[in-house]
């Protein structure tokens, strides 16, 4: 072969070697660390041999520090255990074990910080775990890099934690029942009550009053309970009555000042999972229970203690036995009981 043609062959061979590596894919992926103790995304697919840059971003709203470590198939628990065993050397090693099974690892990132990891995805297909090895996190905070392997449906994927899937707690509904809970459009000391049947109401222990009524299913508190408590429970069903701006039950000792409504919540008696609320308005003890009727809801009030009481009905239609009217006020003698009907809208 002439020198010129062997040089040509060498160039061709070089090209065959060089060009494929230039064509080998380079990819960037962002993985966020989030509350509660999870990676987003918790899994992804990638081709073997890819030059991968992972941008790890700590977006944990509860301010926890996290790292991320990629390891080889089957070694998730081993690496987590080895990291725990670092003990007092943990902090200086960023909680990353010195192991040949670590493909890539970040430092420990404070909330808000980020770091890029650059590594080449192995050529061997398989499911490569990634995990945060900060003490205590690894049991819950891990994910899976599917290398040259197709991901199964999320619900069937045993390589990601429960936090990655739809909430597995089945929404169970107990009726009748009551649950103190963060609810929408009410103060923080809220009580949700599911009546027998399909009516529900939200009662505010902070202002001692009924706030709204809905028909249908009760509440869904799963996000509140599964998360850090930031999420409000969802009110299921249709709200058909709201106290809105109308004044709650206003009573005071006859002859005393009318504008204040100073309340104190005393708790409730419970029977068959239904409450009789116990509270005081302007020092006057009140007991309130709410029942569902054929036409809506009925609020039953009892003022158990003796006294001369004035009530400001506001928008409510109240009739109280033996009461006298004084302008827009009702005056009567306690102890006494009375009710307020709240008719449901006719369909």
């Amino acid at each position: 072969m002439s020198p010129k043609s062997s040089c040509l062959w060498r160039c061709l061979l070089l090209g065959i070697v060089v060009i494929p590596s230039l064509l080998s894919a380079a990819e960037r992926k962002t993985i966020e660390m989030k509350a509660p103790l999870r990676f987003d995304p918790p899994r992804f697919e990638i081709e073997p041999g890819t030059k991968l840059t992972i941008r790890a971003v700590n977006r944990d709203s509860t301010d926890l520090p996290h790292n991320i470590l990629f390891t080889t198939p089957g070694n998730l628990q081993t690496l987590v255990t080895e990291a725990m065993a670092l003990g007092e050397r943990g902090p200086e090693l960023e909680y990353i074990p010195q192991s040949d099974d670590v493909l890539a690892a970040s430092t420990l990132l404070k909330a808000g910080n980020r770091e890029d990891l650059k590594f080449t995805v192995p050529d061997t297909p398989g499911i490569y775990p990634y995990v945060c090895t900060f003490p205590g996190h690894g049991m819950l905070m891990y994910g899976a890099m599917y290398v040259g392997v197709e991901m199964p449906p999320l619900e069937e994927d045993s390589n990601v934690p429960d936090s990655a899937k739809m909430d597995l707690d089945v929404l169970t509904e107990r009726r009748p029942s009551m649950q103190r809970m963060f609810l929408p459009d009410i103060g923080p000391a809220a009580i949700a009550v599911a009546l027998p049947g399909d009516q529900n109401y939200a009662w505010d222990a902070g202002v001692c009053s009924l706030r709204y009524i809905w028909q249908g299913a009760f509440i869904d508190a799963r996000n509140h309970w599964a998360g850090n408590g930031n999420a409000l429970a969802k009110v299921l069903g249709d709200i058909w009555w709201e106290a809105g701006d109308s004044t709650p039950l206003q009573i005071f000792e006859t002859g005393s000042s009318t504008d204040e409504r100073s309340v104190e919540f005393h708790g409730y008696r419970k029977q068959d999972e239904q409450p009789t609320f116990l509270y005081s308005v302007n020092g006057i003890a009140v007991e309130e229970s709410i029942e569902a009727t054929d036409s809506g809801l009925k609020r039953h009030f009892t003022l158990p203690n003796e006294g001369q009481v004035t009530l400001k009905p506001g928008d409510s239609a109240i009739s109280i036995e033996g009461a006298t009217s004084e302008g827009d006020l009702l005056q009567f003698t306690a102890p006494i009981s009375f009710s307020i009907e709240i008719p449901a809208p006719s369909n």
Partner: protein
Amino acid sequence: MKLLSLFTTIGLLVGGTALGEDYSRYYRVTPIPTPGDVNGQVGGIDLLPDGRMAVAFHHGEVGFIDVRRNEWTIFARGLHEPLGVVALSDSSIMVMQRPELTKITDTDGDGIGDLYETITDEFGMTGNYHEFAFGPVRDANGDFFISLNVASNGAGIREEIRGDWLEVGMERERFYTEEWKDVKKEAGRMYSRVPWRGWIMKVDGETGEMTPWASGFRSPNGLGFDADGNLFATDNQGDWIGTSPLYHVEEGNFYGHVASVPWMEDWDGRDPLEVPTAEFDQMRTRPALQFPQGIVANSPTQILTIDSDEFSTFNGQLLVGEMNYPRLLRVMMEEVAGVKQGAVVNLLDGGDLNLGNHRFAFDERGKIVVGQTHLSWAGGQGMQHIDSTGVVPPDVLDISLTNDGFDLTFTKPFDVETLENSEHYAVASYYYEYHAAYGSPQMDKSESEPVSVVASADGTKVSLKLPELKAGYVYQLDLTGLKDADGEPILNPMVCYTINRLRDGTAPEPQIPGS
């Protein structure tokens, strides 16, 4: 349950490989099944007079369990995140939940609570998720103590709040009108804008009247009394808290986290975020003990005085729980120059014990009943029994600061030759800085070995003389290599002592930025 078995597996792996300790020689850990339809995260446990245990759960149930028959009755339902329970009688309990301290009584004798009395709800709530409420614990007079978490700027506040809004700090409307990420820094990393958040409060056992007791807390999850009736609280590493502390809580003291300061009666109205750190450093009472982060504990929980035939070796000392590691801690306190200080060591670490050890109590036979939780942090769930095999573990029983080192007492005679080898005492010392930022690294860390080691002839005591002792530092002793007279290795080799005072009364220098 998949999660539970994963925790147990990890626990077994950790227990089996960690430093070769064999806890199963000394302790047995067995599961206690929780009711099937109840989320198994535990917020409170106490022993009823009739021998049943009252257990509060994450979704708001309180169950009574007969632990011998493993029978559950659901006594109460519908509470909002109960994080503590005290049994008053066989038919009444006191529970702390997010919105209030509640007494629940079975008045009609059917075994189920029917009267839920609000003992006190006189503290504020903004609806911020981090405003947990902890306790109650009851003192010898029958009064209760509760503690209130501050809010976190991981979130804002609700439209409707309970309690008077504090005008000191970022204006309330900005919480609602601006992008949260733009204002969260100005709100303060943790904040206290409604009454008593960040405080420990006393509640009169007769009247229910609530009075402020002490301030400067962040997430005071654990409350408990020592054998002498002194109140202690654990808190969590975070802003202003370099590493998780154990506080000796006394009336009127301020413990360091600044958000709660404006509720003090005589506060001059300044925004705590603008007050120099040195001023708060002068005001604060330092922790009685510090739990080194990442090594001993990341999130300590309940405090309980050990009083049990099963664990009688350690009677009078404190049991403290921990969330992130599968362990229970033991605290040995003493008083030096009038100030409480002491050391923490593992009681039990790994083996079958789950993570997330949140609440515990001694059952009527003196076994530990522990309940686990995780909420949205690292931990576990469910309940376990811990009892002793009857074999006394080879451990440090007690530790005392001397003029120039430490005296250690052991639970049984140790091998004198291993005791006299100074290489078996690796000493590291460091301090945690007091500053606004989240957590502190170990500062000024140095390592040393004892200058001299003198063991008693019977192997039950050793006196260590160290080259230097510094007030305000944690002394981490690694006693790996010590063996008891039967050749068994020391069960828990790491002991961390927090020096608040030297024997001559020397107090710590300020440990703030720039010092």
